[in-house]
């Protein structure tokens, strides 16, 4: 079980949250200008990182807010939590290799 620190409510058990997939995926400005392949890439294709991954979580059984988490997909270490619209924090290489 992960303990996730909601940016508002504080540390809560994973069972209070829902996972929202990869963060910082921007909707294309002009979807009608994309090929089918480009559109499918935007809709369905996600990176499958071994290491640091920026992802969205929803505090669905708490304050019901979305936020971002920077998690190491190998160790499950959560290195940072930041609100929607905030820039992802810069992580020093030494920490990245944890």
């Amino acid at each position, binding site marked *: 079980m992960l303990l996730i620190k909601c940016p508002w*409510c504080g540390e809560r058990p994973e*069972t*209070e949250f829902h996972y929202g997939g990869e963060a910082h995926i921007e909707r294309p400005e002009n979807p009608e200008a994309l090929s089918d392949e480009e559109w499918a890439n935007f809709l369905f294709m996600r990176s499958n990182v071994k290491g640091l991954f920026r992802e969205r979580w929803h505090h669905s*059984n*708490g*304050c019901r807010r979305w936020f971002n988490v920077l998690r190491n997909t190998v160790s499950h270490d959560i290195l940072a939590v930041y609100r929607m619209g905030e820039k992802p924090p810069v992580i020093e290489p030494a920490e990245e290799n944890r």
Partner: protein
Amino acid sequence: MGKFEHWHSPFEGQENLFSDALKAQPFTAQVNLRGNPDDGVFNGWVKDSLDLELPLEPNRISEGKGCKALWLGPDEWLVIGSDEGLASDLSSPPDGLHSAVTDVSANRVILELSGPHARDVLSKSCELDFHPRVFGTGMVVQTLLAKSQAIIEQVGGDRYHLYVRNSFARYVAEWLSDALLEFQ
């Protein structure tokens, strides 16, 4: 006779679930209030309407005259009061104010869990820490209680109010009365 006269408790015929340690609270007016707490107009309107300062710190409550507000989110509160006119107190926001008022009185029932083993029973039913070093009177959390969505408020030394969904109320009350058995 008000609009609550048609409300039926989900516990009718279930009085055997209750004891000194677990009680159903009488019907209470509940209003979900949303707005921007950084907006002075919003704050002023709430203060004038309810005589209440909204809690801005997460997981806190604040009390006004005849009502109180529970923090639910950074722009969301649950206002509780015994007066069924609570929602109408908030029925005329200033022009152009971005806010929402929803009467949710029938959404949740309130159970009171109290006594020397109240915290033990909560710990059996919920993953959060209710030890006095991190939780106390005047604090509130939205979480899962016996896997069902609930709001848990500490109203006194060993007294907790549990706001549970109407449709889950019987299940939660049965769970809690069972959890209390080992302490009786």
